[in-house]
């Protein structure tokens, strides 16, 4: 009985959080079209609903109702599997991301994290290797794109997916190494403990107090490459490759790649927020809410959402500003600049910690 209750508890959490994320993904597309429109001095979507606010729903309906084309010469099982894999893995990292302490609902504290469980003494049990799970899921995420390109049996798709795999493997290294400094400061791989180590105002955040701004820059650049966003969107460079790895996909399968890309953007933004910008903590201590009231327990979510929103805005802003890199520039930048910089950051951070710890 206890087991059934526990499974039900987790199922409710998973359903609620996944739906919130997918809703956010849909409206990020709207926000992107709107903002890019304004940056290019045009309106963006305006027709469906006020300010085009119903546009994502119309798009979703269109994707579902469109004919699902299956090109004749594709490798059918892998062609169908690839978008599923992409979107499933993009949503999996959500399981370990905490977006607040806990919410006070129905007279009990519910941890704001799918894998978070209340421990007996008021604390919260968290996965000890939460950060590694996110890194692992991102590193498997390559398969969705690689298989999509290969199974499509088309030159453009294959070239796009080869580029994507090479790019994601290369930037994964500097992405992982840029996080080591933060892990050393917090002394833990648990996302909750990393955030708790940054409590107490913005001067304690790793970006400022931990002096990890170089690491933050490396992480941000690598995250753009991992999520295939401009200026690193070579896998889908439309001037050379039609649409890259998803050239042969249509209808909902295409939409699934889209969902995966935006969900990955949210994951990258969440990790940046949790590791460098103090997670759900307020920039000033007096702005932290009282965790024992419903409204007060909602306040950390507001801070978390604000920080993620800033990252999403940055993604869109950069898309509206920067041109695309050339492929050799991309590889040289990753291997010859970001990777040595990340290693130097580890050395400097560990020296700094050793000197500070000395009595």
């Amino acid at each position, binding site marked *: 009985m206890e087991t059934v209750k526990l499974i039900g508890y987790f199922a409710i959490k998973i359903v609620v959080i996944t739906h919130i994320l997918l809703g956010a993904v849909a409206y990020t597309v709207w926000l992107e079209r709107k903002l890019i429109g304004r940056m290019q001095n045009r309106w963006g979507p305006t027709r469906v609903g006020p300010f085009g606010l119903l546009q994502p729903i119309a798009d979703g309906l269109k994707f579902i109702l469109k004919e699902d084309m299956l090109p004749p010469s594709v490798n059918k099982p892998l062609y169908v599997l690839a978008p599923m894999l992409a979107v499933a893995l993009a949503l999996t990292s959500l399981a370990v991301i905490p977006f607040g302490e806990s919410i006070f609902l129905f007279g009990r504290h519910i941890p704001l994290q799918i894998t978070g469980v209340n421990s007996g003494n008021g604390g919260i049990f968290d996965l000890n290797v939460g950060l590694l799970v996110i890194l692992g899921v991102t590193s498997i995420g390559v398969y969705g794109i690689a*298989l999509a390109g290969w199974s499509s049996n088309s030159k453009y798709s294959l070239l796009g997916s080869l580029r994507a795999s090479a790019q994601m493997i290369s930037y994964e290294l500097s992405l992982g190494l840029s996080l080591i400094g933060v892990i050393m400061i917090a002394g833990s791989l648990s996302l909750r403990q990393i955030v708790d180590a940054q409590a107490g105002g913005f001067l304690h955040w790793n970006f400022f107090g931990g002096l990890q701004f170089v690491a933050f820059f490396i992480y941000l650049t690598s995250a753009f490459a991992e999520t295939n966003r401009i200026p690193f969107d070579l896998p889908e460079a439309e001037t050379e490759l039609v649409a890259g790895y998803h050239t042969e996909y249509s209808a909902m399968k295409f939409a699934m790649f889209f969902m995966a890309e935006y969900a990955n953007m949210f994951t990258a933004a969440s990790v940046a927020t949790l590791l460098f910008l103090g997670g759900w903590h307020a920039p000033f201590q007096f702005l932290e809410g009282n965790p024992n009231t419903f409204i007060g327990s909602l306040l950390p979510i507001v801070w978390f959402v604000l920080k993620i929103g800033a990252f999403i805005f940055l993604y869109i802003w950069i898309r509206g500003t920067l041109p695309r890199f050339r492929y050799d520039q991309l590889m040289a930048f990753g291997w010859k600049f970001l990777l040595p910089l990340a290693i130097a950051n580890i050395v400097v951070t560990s020296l700094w910690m050793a000197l500070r710890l000395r009595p």
Partner: protein
Amino acid sequence: MVHHILFLVFAAICVGGALNLLLQKHPIHSALSLIVVMGSLALLYLLLGAEFVAAIQVIVYAGAIMVLFVFVIMLLNAGEEEQTDGSKLAMVLGAPIVAALIGMVLFTLLRRNVNAGIELGKFFGTTSGVAKLLFRDFLLPFEVTSVLVLIAIMGAVVLARREH
């Protein structure tokens, strides 16, 4: 209870993936089956409580090494393999050797009292446990191994370099 069910499920997936790896004719299908084996092995480690080993299994094997496998297969555009009869030696020696191996495993398992449980080492699969083993108890072998890997990388670069 839940542990047992999960163990059986993932063990079955693991064995199924391994069999599929051997039976598939296309190299990319075999490579994908190997990824399934790696993934379910990681989940088995997680069930044992070795969270760090599980995460590393996914990141290193399923995420890095197998991506290179798939990458190379895609790049070479390898087609379907032809089925051969296999070597005579394998046909003759295979079955007895497999039987002997299974017999040995069963013998070892059944000899000890299974219900008594098996003692785990002090540093089992957690992040700090693995770190203590690598960077304290076995520091020298660990560093020597990394130098060895470095030499291998340099050798590969020298071999792959074009003459100017």
